[in-house]
């Protein structure tokens, strides 16, 4: 029987020719990731094993991004713990302030995650790397600790759902709208424990940044991973970054899917997810008009150069509504630099936005733009749970950078063609 890409990657890393959904496997890992929230817990667990070394100094990646640059003394202690661990165990890929970025923007950019890889990260949005044709999934800190020791992790081989997108994408509709629309359709547990395989002519033409956005939100449908088969677009991106060999896997024509869902995207509008779940989606025509206090453009979902390009295109020569606080968080130092070279940063600042150093910041209600009671924000992030960006009685609406930029100018949720 045929296998999906996800099955093939797991099989290859378990030293098997064939694996079936439901099987429990022990697999070798290519990359183990942690951040300033999850790594400290992992480090304290790792220390209980009393080991002198980690399984491989090159395959562990540590990124302080959630509460970094350190937001307070406790965060500073957590970052310090991680920094000292990296030094003590000779972890090669520790990214200090000045080099760091939001982990899921940073790892692909640095060529640390590649097609065919098996990656775990103590962060739920580790699934982002599926955009490169890798099997990447979020785990907890204890999994990370065990993996740092053994280079292995246990997996249950997931069933796969195949999503086929066809038709022509309308203007201002992109990866964020595709994934929000999909989550709106199947719900926040529609792909629970499963692999989401994104395919079809629309995906084949989709830029790598838009693919990252889609794979990033697989977890928002409960997915174990999201995956897109690597192709020319992928190779274009990884070839100049990869420092080691990689393998491209393709799903067999007779691979078994638990479900196949098709979407004609030709009539899709920009999508907005209303509080307090990513599945509460509405087309922009039914969402416009909600008065906002804050707009956030950034995060591991939409903090890449193409996202900033779209926002800049809309904001160019315009002024942000006087009652809106707009915060722009480029995903990495490289992205920030590139945005500066291309003149986007100037556009943002002249429009009246605040531009930040890379950080998760307000995405998880950490710092750099927390909401007060009753406030409403529209964000290009991935979660709008109760209290996600601040006060439990604040609200978060999720949308694309295009909708975010237009809404910042209008002062309320607005379509990109309204400005």
């Amino acid at each position: 029987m045929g296998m999906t890409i996800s099955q093939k990657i797991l099989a290859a890393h378990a030293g098997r020719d064939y694996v079936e959904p439901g099987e429990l496997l022990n697999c070798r890992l290519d990359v183990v990731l942690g951040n300033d929230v999850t790594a400290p817990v992992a480090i304290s667990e790792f220390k209980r094993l009393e080991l002198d070394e980690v399984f491989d100094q090159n395959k562990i990646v540590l990124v302080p991004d959630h509460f970094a640059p350190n937001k307070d003394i406790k965060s500073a202690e957590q970052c310090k713990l991680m920094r000292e661990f990296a030094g003590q165990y000779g972890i090669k890929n520790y990214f200090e302030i000045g080099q760091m970025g939001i982990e899921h923007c940073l790892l692909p950019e640095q060529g640390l995650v590649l097609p065919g890889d098996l990656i775990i990260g103590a962060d739920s949005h580790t699934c982002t790397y599926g955009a490169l044709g890798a099997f990447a999934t979020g785990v907890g800190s204890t999994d990370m600790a065990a993996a740092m020791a053994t280079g292995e992790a246990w997996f249950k081989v997931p069933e796969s759902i195949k999503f086929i997108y066809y038709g022509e994408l309308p203007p201002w509709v992109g990866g964020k709208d595709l994934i929000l629309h999909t989550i709106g359709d199947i719900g926040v547990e529609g792909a629970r424990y499963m692999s989401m395989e994104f395919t079809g002519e629309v995906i084949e033409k989709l830029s790598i940044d838009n693919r990252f956005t889609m794979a990033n939100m697989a977890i928002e449908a409960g997915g174990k991973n999201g995956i897109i088969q690597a192709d020319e677009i992928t190779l274009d991106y990884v070839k100049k970054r990869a420092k080691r060999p990689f393998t491209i896997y393709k799903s067999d024509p007779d691979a078994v899917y638990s479900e196949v869902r098709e979407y004609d995207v030709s009539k899709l509008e920009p999508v907005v997810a209303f509080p307090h779940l990513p599945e509460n989606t509405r087309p922009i025509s039914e969402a416009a008009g909600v008065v906002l206090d804050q707009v956030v453009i950034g995060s591991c979902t939409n903090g890449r150069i193409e996202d900033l390009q779209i926002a800049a295109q809309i904001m160019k020569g315009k002024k942000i509504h006087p009652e809106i606080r707009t915060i722009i968080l480029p995903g990495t130092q490289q992205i920030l630099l590139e945005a500066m070279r291309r003149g986007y940063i100037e556009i943002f600042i002249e429009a009246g936005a605040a531009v930040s150093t890379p950080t998760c910041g307000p995405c998880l209600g950490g710092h750099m733009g927390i909401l007060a009671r009753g406030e409403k924000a529209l964000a290009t992030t991935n979660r709008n749970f109760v209290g996600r960006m601040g006060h439990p009685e604040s609200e978060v609406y999720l949308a694309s950078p295009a909708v975010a930029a237009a809404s910042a100018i209008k002062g309320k949720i607005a379509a990109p063609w309204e400005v």
Partner: protein
Amino acid sequence: MILSGRVHKFGADIDTDAIIPARYLNTFDPGELAQHCMEDADPRFPEKVQAGDIIAADKNFGCGSSREHAPIAIKGAGVSCVIAKSFARIFYRNCINVGLPILECSEAVDAMQDGDPLQVDLDTGKIINLRSKEEYQAMPFPPFMQQIMDKGGLINYVKERKERDEVEV
């Protein structure tokens, strides 16, 4: 092992931000996290919860982030186990890895009311509602996961395998 305690019942899709809001993640001290456990779902939960109590919830409990602070906060609050109709994947995995007992049983959840006294047999998955005297059977764990739970979590499990030289470390 047999547990008994009172139920705190929650709805569907309780996410990890509700279990332990991100604003408290600058520490992983169980006692400190416990003071804010379930705060955004029920602000009075940290005061109300007593050692041995049981959390029950509808579908998709623990969705959202991978933070192990969520099961740590629940354990820190003294909760003895969580029963839900279903669990989100990473949360499920984390509970096994940190040794917080969890059970999936829709019938038991549907029938129970907030405050019901329960008795749970972790070895057999049998749940008894002491108010209604009804019995329910939860799904058993696959043996491999049961082994990790029996050792008190993944690190102990790895440690033992390492001592027996079963893994290269």
